């Protein structure tokens, strides 16, 4: 009887998935998207204020990334590369959306109407999201990257191109404003 051994399944690295995508492996790109979907989607949701817009931005990001996968200069840091694309897509959408008025009641009512009884934590998050929408886009972006995505200022500089001092000021102002808004909400 011949003994057989199966090789342990190894989880491919980001770099490996990028290289496989480059030679036409669609599924490899699917795995890459699955890895980053939640994190990128979360950022887009809070940056843009709605699930629809977040999904659009996410989809746009993945399509552009797939088309330009050869231009990912550091495949082992494809996450940062994807994030940079996403931030640009979100900024483009924000620039278009600045002509519209943020409607808290409309968005919140739609979200509330489409889910079952809102838990206390979900309600709290909704309040935070509303407060986030009151921030200028650059402060919101900096706050999300610093405190939600927990990036360093070096990483934030790499993604956004803004200087360390500008980023720190935006984070500081965002924190101050959020505290004011959320204390008012809870009062």
């Amino acid at each position, binding site marked *: 009887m011949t003994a057989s051994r199966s090789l342990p399944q190894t989880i491919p690295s980001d770099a490996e998935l990028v*290289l496989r995508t*480059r030679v036409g492996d669609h599924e490899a790109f699917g795995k890459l998207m699955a890895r980053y979907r939640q994190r990128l989607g979360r950022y887009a949701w809070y940056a843009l204020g709605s699930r629809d817009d977040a999904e659009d931005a996410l989809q746009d990001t993945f399509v552009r990334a797939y088309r330009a996968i*050869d*231009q*990912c*200069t*550091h*495949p082992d*840091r494809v996450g940062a590369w994807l994030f940079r694309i996403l931030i640009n897509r979100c900024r483009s959408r924000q620039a278009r959306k600045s002509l519209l008025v943020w409607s808290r009641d409309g968005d919140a009512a739609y979200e509330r109407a489409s889910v079952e009884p809102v838990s206390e934590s979900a309600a709290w998050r909704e309040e935070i999201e509303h407060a986030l929408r009151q921030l200028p886009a650059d402060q919101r972006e900096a706050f999300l990257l610093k405190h939600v995505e927990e990036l360093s200022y070096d990483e934030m500089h*790499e993604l956004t191109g803004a200087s360390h001092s500008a980023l720190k000021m935006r984070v500081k102002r965002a924190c101050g404003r959020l505290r004011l808004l959320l204390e008012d909400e809870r009062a």
Partner: protein
Amino acid sequence: MTLRWTCALALAAALPLPLAAQDARLTARLDSSTALQVQALVDSARGERLPGEPLVQKALEGSAKGADDVRIVAAVRALYGNLRVARSALGSGATEPELVAGVATLRAGGTPDMLATLRRLRPAQSVAIPLGVLTDLVARGAPLTSAWRSVEGLARSGGSDAQFLAIRDPAGQRGNPAPPVQPLHPAGVPAAGAPQP
């Protein structure tokens, strides 16, 4: 779907890939045989995921300088080979500016090991500026070994692009005011593309 959406999709699907098109600049400036040879080299380079634009520019440079077709094709072929060596040393993720700068360094006498070392020392940052500074120092007369020592040392200590440029231009500005061009005398000034000894 709206008519506009349908048309846009149809257009996007019907357009051939840019890589398959003959570059109009080559056909306008070179004879057809040379343009075809150069285009083949450009397409081959792009097939290897090397940048094609430097090859196009090399051909156009040769054309502008009045070089003969054999020389133009040879120059493009040589540049193609250099780009391959540069990419081998810098890694598959090297950008076009890095590859172009890498080629210049190789032509200045630099080695693939130097390129690979800079890449190792600066894994997350472009090496285009350090390579460019190394090349330029040699072009200005510095021995390669001492130029390399300066550039490598700064890379090891995490120098910024601005610091690299400051090695090359200590005054902080690009070059010095140029001396006047010699008054033109037909006997003293070579015509464009004239063969050099």
